[in-house]
């Protein structure tokens, strides 16, 4: 388990970020040290070089060799203890001076005590050699122990600082990564437990207002939705079972009675007709459920086309005008032409047909129904008994039937289908009591 955590630690985002941070700080340390180096050791070295050049310039290097030798002897006597001289003949013989390095040829040199023989107590020396006319070489050197010491100090400090930066960065990354991993692990452990058992449980947010709180909140919202959906599925199953029972029980009763009685042909026909009506009712409920399920998947959205809403509503009004009149009711319409929406023609037909039929079926035998459309807003108004305000939110749920219509046929899904189709079209549905009656508004926005 510990090993697994360790292995995954390297893969955590916060660890990678920490690693990147450590690398950047190490790079910054390099730059800082480079600047320190050039500001201290660099300028010290430039000072040394300048001193040496000045010293050489004071010696008569271009003059007669004898004079130069005397000048060097003089300089050795007068010079401060940090300056050294050597005049070496072309054959390597030392002519004057107080040092005799093994390596001596024109140009800049750095001599170190561990490589070259140097005067006592001197760790390093920097020198410049020039060749003069007769082939002899003149070297002026200065004690550079301080420079070498400084270099060493800088390098040591740099190594230490660099290592520390890197180490701190990595350790910080490991800690942060580990902490985040622990949080995530706690959340996923809670999720697993919830999935395995009690769906009503929620993930405890760490409570610091950070991303983990957001994550926990999102997961909790998802869990709430899952719980609600599962509840709906359970309820739907109950409702379906409950809803299908009565027509099937009636069918069974009809058949049983018919079997017990001696029947002639005409009675037999009647029983069959009645049974067919009851079966049709069952089948129409099933097809309504399937329809609703299909609409709710949202797959119909792929087939959306531009629909002449005005023409569609006019057709429906002309159709249901006759249905209403045949039943002793009336239906009027006032539909402004030229309104177009993106949608599914079949489903829009069903949406408005369901609402009109709902009014025809529940608004009473002499009801007046009005279909009004202006722009993208459609109103269907009736002057029936209305819908209690407390039920407005509920009537678009599945299988909800208000008490007054409890015993009339119908799937209890008509308005649920309306709500699903409206949602598919991003349309807003609103109910308003009209005293008497009710108005339903569909707003396509």
């Amino acid at each position, binding site marked *: 388990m510990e090993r697994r955590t360790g292995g995954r630690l390297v893969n955590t985002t916060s660890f990678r970020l920490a690693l990147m941070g450590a690398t950047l700080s190490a790079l910054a340390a390099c730059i800082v040290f480079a600047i320190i180096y050039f500001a201290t050791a660099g300028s010290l070295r430039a000072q040394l070089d300048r001193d040496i050049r000045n010293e050489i310039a004071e010696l008569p290097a271009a003059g007669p060799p004898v004079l130069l030798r005397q000048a060097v002897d003089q300089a050795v006597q007068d010079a401060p203890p940090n300056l050294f001289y050597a005049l070496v003949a072309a054959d390597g013989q030392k002519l004057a001076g107080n040092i005799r390095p093994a390596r001596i040829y024109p140009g800049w040199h750095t001599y170190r005590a561990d490589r070259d023989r140097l005067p006592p107590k001197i760790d390093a020396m920097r020198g410049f050699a020039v060749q003069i006319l007769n082939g002899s070489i003149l070297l002026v050197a200065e004690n550079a122990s301080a420079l070498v010491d400084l270099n060493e100090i800088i390098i040591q400090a740099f190594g230490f600082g660099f290592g520390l930066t890197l180490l701190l960065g990595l350790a910080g990354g490991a800690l942060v990564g580990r902490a985040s991993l622990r949080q995530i692990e706690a959340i996923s452990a809670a999720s697993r437990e919830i999935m395995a058992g009690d769906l009503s449980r929620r993930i405890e947010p760490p409570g610091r207002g950070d991303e983990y709180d957001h994550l926990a909140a999102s997961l909790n919202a998802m869990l709430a939705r899952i719980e609600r959906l599962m509840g709906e599925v359970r309820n739907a199953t109950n409702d379906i079972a409950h809803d299908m029972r009565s027509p099937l029980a009636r069918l069974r009763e009809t058949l049983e009675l018919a079997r017990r009685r001696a029947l002639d042909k005409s009675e037999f026909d009647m029983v069959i007709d009645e049974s067919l009506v009851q079966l049709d009712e069952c089948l129409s409920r099933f097809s309504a459920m399937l329809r609703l399920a299909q609409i709710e998947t949202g797959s119909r959205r792929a087939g959306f086309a531009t629909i002449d809403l005005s023409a569609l509503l006019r*057709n429906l009004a*002309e*159709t249901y005008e*006759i249905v209403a009149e*045949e039943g002793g009711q009336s239906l009027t319409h006032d539909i402004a032409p030229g309104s177009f929406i993106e949608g599914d023609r079949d489903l829009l*037909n*069903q949406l408005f047909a369901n609402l009109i039929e709902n009014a025809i079926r529940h608004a009473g035998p002499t009801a007046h129904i009005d279909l009004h459309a202006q722009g993208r807003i459609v109103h269907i108004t009736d002057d029936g008994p209305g819908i209690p305000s407390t039920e407005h939110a509920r009537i678009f749920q599945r299988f909800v039937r208000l008490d007054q219509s409890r015993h009339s046929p119908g799937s209890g899904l*008509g308005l649920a289908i309306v709500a699903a189709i409206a949602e598919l079209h991003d349309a807003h549905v609103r109910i308003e009591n009209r005293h008497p009656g009710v108005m339903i508004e569909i707003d396509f926005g």
Partner: protein
Amino acid sequence: MSQLVTRQGKKITLKPREYELLEYLMRHAGQVVTRTMLLEDVWDFHFDPQTSVVESHISRLRSKIDRGFPVELLATIRGAGYRLGGD
């Protein structure tokens, strides 16, 4: 497009939907057409209405084309649908 319907020289006034229904029945004269066929082909309804859409229109059409004539043209076929003309 003019929609003129006459029976035995008597002019009959139909509403657009009634005219479409009659036209469909005439194109299928002598055949039994089911309620579902009518809903889908005349009304373009691909769902099951909860009110008597077809029955109301048939009744209305029948009252216009058959009332006052000795022979009934539009017959209801029990458990199957409707038929215009024929046996």
